[in-house]
């Protein structure tokens, strides 16, 4: 099952992802995704926040979200036509437990998903996130 949505590059537009994920899992017949849903939803939200904050795009631009659910889990691709991400910044994470006023987004993403990668093709960034489907009766 695949579902796609285009969103304005704007913080206020991202809350629609809540209902979008509800529909994605419902379409796939996954009635109680539990933690899998909350993990992929927050991780996707954080990637979109990262695009809004750092891509150089404006609310007139769009980012594309594609979600796919199968027997292995859920995979989301977030694509944008913004600037090449600063890999130096991406590599620096806050020290866990030390309060600072930013930089938590990618740290949270890495802790929530099972696979995470960024690719750049031409002028398009694509962020791929995957959360495995837990065995029956399992989950994390």
């Amino acid at each position: 099952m695949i579902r796609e949505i285009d969103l304005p590059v704007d913080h206020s537009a991202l809350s629609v992802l809540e209902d979008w994920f509800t529909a994605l899992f419902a379409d796939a017949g996954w009635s109680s995704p539990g933690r899998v849903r909350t993990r992929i939803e927050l991780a996707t939200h954080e990637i979109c926040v990262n695009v809004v904050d750092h891509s150089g795009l404006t609310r007139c631009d769009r980012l594309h979200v594609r979600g796919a659910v199968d027997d292995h889990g859920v995979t989301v691709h977030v694509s944008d036509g913004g600037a090449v991400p600063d890999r130096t910044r991406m590599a620096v994470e806050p020290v866990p437990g030390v309060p600072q006023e930013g930089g938590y987004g990618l740290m949270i993403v890495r802790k929530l998903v099972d696979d995470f990668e960024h690719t750049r093709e031409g002028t398009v960034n694509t962020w791929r996130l995957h959360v495995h489907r837990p065995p029956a009766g399992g989950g994390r």
Partner: protein
Amino acid sequence: MTPTSLSVTRPAPGLAVVEVAGRFDAPAALELRRAIDTFAVGGVDTAVVDLTEATFVDSAGLAAVVHAHRVCESVGGTAVVCEPRSADARRVFELTMLDRVLRMVTVRGAGDAA
């Protein structure tokens, strides 16, 4: 879509209580930061950030809570965070280990198990 509400009250001199319910994401975080930035000039040294009814907390919300912590500490006070009832909303504090450095308390309501 879960709506957000944010309210600020000043129940006593030097004390401010900010309640955030629903989604605590970038738009709400910006509102919280604006409120907090008035605290120092308003004589507030103790802030209670009540997230009991927050159902979703992202990195922007987290950063705004850290901002409250820093502003209060800078004037010799403290910020207390009422942790979200929602386990999902609490999770970002645990993932970043900020639950170990922020002063977090659990507020139990009448409907909660003892």
